[in-house]
């Protein structure tokens, strides 16, 4: 996903928030990963907004995309100029209303924003893991999040919500812990990574690995593979936009000049934009994390869960779904969302689906959209009230 909006945030905000940390899987009780490897200790950075209700029935778990973090909303201080990455959606009175819901968002396993990843210290060598970090999957990320929720005393989630790779985690949550998830909102996502998406990730990874500073991942004490990571980010940005979005945003406009340079400066605005995005990105992201996390996304395939293909994967799922796609998203196009919806219908699941007309490509899910906000608000209100009436029934039965 792109860098979120840096423009002025809407008036209502969760305000000043604190990043918290939870460490678990201390040796010898390491976390077992899908690859068979063991990892520990593991730390997850997380944030929470809003109040947990006495019945603990208002938990909304937000799952971030490839380069996101635990900072979904609010500011780290009064002077912090930049709000969380989903400030437009998460806050008092917003689509995900923090006056009603207790929102939890954590940085993924393998990340570089406070959670354990390849830049973390390897306890065995007292050096950063680098390529000694074990390969991870979306399922491993979800398992770690489950342990965080256990730690927070949460046994039931009202809704898991996420876009892009966050949407993959949403689907994984529903399949892995069906009894915990009341509802789910996968946005702009796919039930399995396509060859096209893998191809772009591979080109991005190759850009990093071709950077001489990469040093097979062992660069933490010297110069970093900034050029490679910046190129990787540029490739990503192309896939997050669309033909139409780029035409509107840049067209063939030249950058700070009236004529072609006839050298390899950034002649066009689109070149300048991509270079800028690349440069900005290396300040905040670790190249090895990029490698491990993109691989996890590439491995994601819900149809590999045994019998019955995609419909089989949803066989034990009980969540109510709101699936949303965007018309100009060619990275995870609407057809993929429809495949999911189809599998859910075959299993008799309660599913709503909306394809939002948007010209901004894959990034649309992060941009301000009154429609998306209204969809999330309405769906959450419904599942919350249905969940509450279930509780009332259970209480009556208990007497």
């Amino acid at each position, binding site marked *: 996903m792109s860098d979120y909006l840096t423009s002025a945030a809407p008036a209502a905000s969760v305000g000043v928030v604190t990043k918290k940390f939870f460490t678990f899987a201390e040796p010898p009780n390491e976390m077992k990963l899908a690859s068979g490897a063991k990892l520990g200790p593991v730390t997850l950075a997380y944030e929470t907004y809003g109040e947990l209700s006495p019945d603990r029935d208002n938990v909304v778990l937000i799952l971030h995309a490839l380069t996101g973090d635990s900072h979904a909303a609010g500011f780290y201080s009064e002077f912090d100029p930049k709000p969380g990455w989903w400030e437009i959606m998460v806050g008092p009175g917003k689509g995900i209303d923090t006056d009603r819901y207790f929102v939890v968002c954590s940085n993924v396993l393998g990340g570089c924003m406070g959670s354990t990843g390849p830049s973390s210290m390897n306890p065995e060598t007292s050096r950063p893991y680098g390529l000694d970090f074990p390969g991870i999957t979306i399922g491993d990320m979800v398992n770690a999040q489950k342990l965080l929720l256990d730690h927070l005393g949460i046994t039931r989630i009202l809704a898991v919500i996420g876009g892009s790779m966050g949407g993959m985690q949403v689907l994984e949550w529903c399949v892995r812990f069906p009894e915990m998830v009341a509802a789910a909102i996968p946005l702009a996502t796919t039930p399995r990574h396509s060859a096209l998406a893998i191809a772009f990730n591979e080109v991005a990874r190759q850009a990093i690995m071709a950077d001489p500073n990469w040093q097979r991942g062992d660069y933490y004490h010297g110069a970093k593979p900034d050029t490679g990571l910046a190129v990787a980010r540029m490739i990503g940005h192309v896939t997050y936009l669309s033909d139409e979005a780029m035409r509107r945003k840049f067209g063939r406009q030249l950058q700070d000049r009236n004529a072609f340079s006839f050298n390899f400066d950034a002649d066009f605005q689109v070149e300048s934009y991509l270079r800028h995005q690349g440069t900005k990105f290396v300040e905040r992201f670790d190249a090895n994390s990029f490698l491990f996390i993109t691989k996890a996304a590439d491995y994601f395939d819900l149809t590999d869960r045994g019998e019955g293909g995609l419909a089989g994967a949803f066989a034990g799922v009980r969540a*109510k779904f*709101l699936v949303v796609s965007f018309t100009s998203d060619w990275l995870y196009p609407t057809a993929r969302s*429809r495949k999911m*919806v*189809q599998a859910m*219908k*075959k299993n*008799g699941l*309660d*599913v*709503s*689906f*909306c*394809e*939002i*007309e948007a010209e901004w490509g894959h990034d649309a899910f992060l941009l301000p959209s009154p*429609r998306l906000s*209204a*969809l999330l*608000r*309405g*769906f959450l*209100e*419904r599942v919350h*009230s249905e969940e509450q009436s279930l509780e009332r029934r259970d209480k009556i039965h208990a007497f």
Partner: protein
Amino acid sequence: MNVETKSMRFDLQVIASWIEPGARVLDLGCGEGNLLYHLKESKGVRGTGIEKREEKVAQCIASGLSVLQGDLNSEVADYPDHAFEYVILSQTLQQVYEPATLIDQLLRIGQRVIVSFPNFSHWRNRLQLLLAGQAPVSEQLPYQWYDTPNIRVITLRDFKRFALRMGITIHKEVAINTDHHNLEGHVVHFFPNLRATYGIFLISNGSEGLGRK
């Protein structure tokens, strides 16, 4: 959305009265979700809608309904057999390209199917054709031949003949006459094929449908 029975189309009021509390219902072409909302609020029905237009779909979901955006002809194919107690196709049959195929699908996924459509053999339509010699244009069928979405000409009698031929059992049939907003109306008992503006049928596949409840 605030929907009371009174502000709902009269044919939908009749349809709503046929549905038992708590039933699982699929509403095809649900529009803004008036019927589904009414069924949910007044009868605790577990409803799903299918609607083509994004704006309407979003409106439905935002008001707490479970609705899928898509083309009803293809969307119905994904459901398992008898997934719903009622499948509703209101005022859409006349716009369907392959009505026989669709109805067959609906009878597969629904234990019972409710179909409503404008009656083309209403006396005013007949008079227009007979006296003016032109394709009928009325309050129920307000289009010209060249811009109408209503590509199928159906009368109450046609539908009954169709049911007989396909081995479909008709459990209930009501012919109604509505005012020009379609909000109020009455049931037509005499000469319905001549006097009714709409027909509403409750059907199932042979004798099997109604047994499984």
